[in-house]
């Protein structure tokens, strides 16, 4: 198989964001068919002293080697996806994600994550979100420990 070289990830323009959370709501539509946002959204917008921040998966894929059943894989377009039909809900990917972007909602045992589908981008009235292309080689991370780390 030809391995993908690039992947689209979300970029955030903090200066444009007004905190309406339309993106979060759009995301929970994608994953849970609700408008709840928050815990049911793969991307989170939070307000800090410095203004708004976005937190989301950057498709680095540390979780890929970690999954015991092969429920996580990188698609042809480079995006890391989780197949809930294969997943056995062990939560290893949730706990090991170094940036906490693999999420677990109370609605379902199987975790979920950003799939770079762009729903949030389209939902954002302020154009604060954008999908940008990155080289996978630059962002990828592998999981095992080097001895003596």
């Amino acid at each position, binding site marked *: 198989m030809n391995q993908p070289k690039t992947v689209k990830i979300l970029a955030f323009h903090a200066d444009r964001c007004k905190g309406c959370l339309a993106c979060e709501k759009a995301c929970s539509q994608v994953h849970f068919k609700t408008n709840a946002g928050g815990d049911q959204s793969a991307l989170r917008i939070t307000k800090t002293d410095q203004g708004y921040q976005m937190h989301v998966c950057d498709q680095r894929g540390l979780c890929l080697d970690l999954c015991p*059943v092969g429920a996580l894989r990188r698609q042809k377009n480079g995006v890391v996806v989780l197949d809930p039909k294969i997943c056995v809900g*062990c939560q290893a990917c949730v706990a090991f994600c170094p940036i906490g972007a693999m999420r677990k909602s109370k609605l379902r045992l199987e975790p979920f994550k950003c799939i770079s589908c762009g729903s949030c981008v389209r939902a954002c009235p302020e154009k604060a979100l954008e999908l940008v292309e990155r080289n996978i080689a630059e962002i990828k991370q592998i999981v*095992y420990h080097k001895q003596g780390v």
Partner: protein
Amino acid sequence: MVEGQIPIAEYSTGNTKHTWDAKKLRAAHQKLAEYTYKKGDVYRGYANRTLYVNLSTKKISEKPVTDEMKKLFTGGRGFGLKLLWEGIKPTTRWNSEENELLITTGPLCGTTQYAGSGKSLCLSVSPSTNIICDCNVGGFVGPYLKFAGFDALEIQGKASEDVIIFIDGEHGKISIETAPHEETNTHLLAEQLTTMYASEDTDQARQKVAVVSTGAAAEHSYWGCLNFSFYDIRRKTPRIKQAGRGGLGTVFRDKKLKAIVVKIDHLTGLSNHPADPDKLAEIGIKLHKEIRDLDRYQCNMRAVGTGHLVEIMDQYDLLPCENYRFGSFPKASKIYSPKFYELFTKIIPDGCWHGCTLACAKTVDGYTVMTGPYKGQKVTVDGPEYETIAACSNMSIWDPLWILEFNFYCDTYGIDTISTGTAIAFYMEMYEYGILNKERCNGLELCFGNADATLEFIHRIAQGDQAEFIRIASQGIRRVKDWILKNGWGDKKLVEDCGMESKGLEFSEYVTKESLAMQGGYGLTLKGPQHDEAWLIFMDMVNNAIPTFEDKAEALHYFPMWRTWFGLNGLCKLPWNDIEPANNAQTEEPAKVPEHVQNYVEYQNAVTGWKVTKEDLILQSERCYNFQRALNVWMGRGRRKDDWIPYRAMGPVTEMEYLSRRDRYDKQLVEKVGFTAQQVEQMSIQERIHQLYQYRQNQYQKLADAVYYRRGWTQNGVPTPQKMRQLGFTDKKLLQMLEEKIAEDEQAGLNTWGGIYGIGEKPPAQERQYWKFWK
């Protein structure tokens, strides 16, 4: 080594690729019996029935699991004990028709959210000890057995030709089939059966099949182990974990079992139908995070597995070297964990069940075999684990590749690396003294460090070589001791003191000489000398945290009960204390890892919907622990005389050993035994050894006194009916049996304390029949 982030389909491990004519193999199978059952859901951790298979009569049936059974026996090893009590007789021996082999699960077994939740518990009457031996083993069989519909599998009787038991959880069918053409040795057989029984030709389908098997040497020795498989989708091969101790694989082959195959159709993280899945995910994630952040600074299990212990044991003088004569060795650094890290294939996950992020199941792929029938082939070696590496240091084998060779052949031939290594180490010492020699060993030059001869010995066992030494030596140390003594070749005391077995089982791989509590941890066990009841070396000798007999007895009460608990639930012990919360050292009882104990309380409640406390967990274990001891007594072993350990486990046997640690022992003669330095100086080395011997033997007896008292047993080590009643047992047959055994001991004058108590000392109780006063 494989770099990460490769699509699973493209992982390659460099192993030999086998192709089987699966159709031809399958076509030769003859169905001897078939049973159809109605599949039901597991509810709150229980399938609520057990499966009974009789290989003699071909009867297959189901037995219900009642609430009463859950209350008294919890599950796992507890269920196994109950079924054995009903299925065997006190005269049952390992090869009796009615002996049973049990594979059990436990209510928490098969959970995917909490690390270490996929263990099976195996039980049988052991050929080594003639009492019940229990083993805790990873792999997918246990969880699959439960999700196929059964909390336990009970196998009785013997087939007349090689058979496979197939538990088809997909279609709700159990069958007994002949299997004439399959391989016997595990690395091939597990692969054949996984391929043959998978519903489709995909890795996902193969991952739904799990196999129990053993190998050719299990048939001809008392060291037979059971290999439990789990299909690794990256390595594209089934891997194995061992139920190693006590010869359960020998029983398996004696029943003419070639394999047990279990298949499921579907697995999710909720297959256990827990009462509170959110809570479960929450405590699971918390533990995973601890493992992620702390393992590399604590045990480094994710990188090197249990092998990290080798360097620690060597540094603390606890690594068995040359048959436990020494606790460290100049060459030991050759087999420290970094040496194996270089050889391991670093593709995670290496847990032996889904969700075990502690991931200690390390593997060497593409290892080229150096000897025997598979010479030149590339194979997967699962391990080595600490015990296997240390079994090799015990034989003075210091080459990682020879350790892999030993590991691979023990596994595929189906023998326990611990018993095999410990026994050979003893034969090597006897060889060094001339008590054994080349002629007596049927041409084997079994001197320390001779890896070639070691492998040759193992190959000859697998071939069924009936030469006298090969035959007797493969039955273990106890039989060889008797054989040497019968032939008048060696001094009885030397032979008995050096051979590291107790109750007929070989010791596992820790030097216990300097820790009295650890001696108790090996000697005062149910199944024989094994570290999985109480591992108290650091608490006792490094931290000096349990100085008095009473303290040690308390530890020898709590820790065996605590560790038993894992076996009742289908859990691995490692995630309890091989990873600790960052603030553990500041807690009141760090040795117990209180935060993790609390996790387990919440874990059991979350699955079962019970409302247990941490005291209840201990009570669950105490019931089963005492029940198992009562069964030992019933079968004629389980008294003070059976809790004997050889002196090599207590102190230096030979002058060479004494001299190697002379300062330490001289000092102890002064500080502990009470001689002056001058007196010690004037004694010969033999005399010093003798004085230390007397002292340490007496210490051990006093320890046994304190432990028996704490456990609520008689002075001779028999659980009392009063104690059993307190624990909730009302079984008249059981209580009466104990009554009679205690009366027998009373008549023989055996209900007396074993230690000699000096001025100012006293035994644990003044009243001889102290238990009579219990409510």
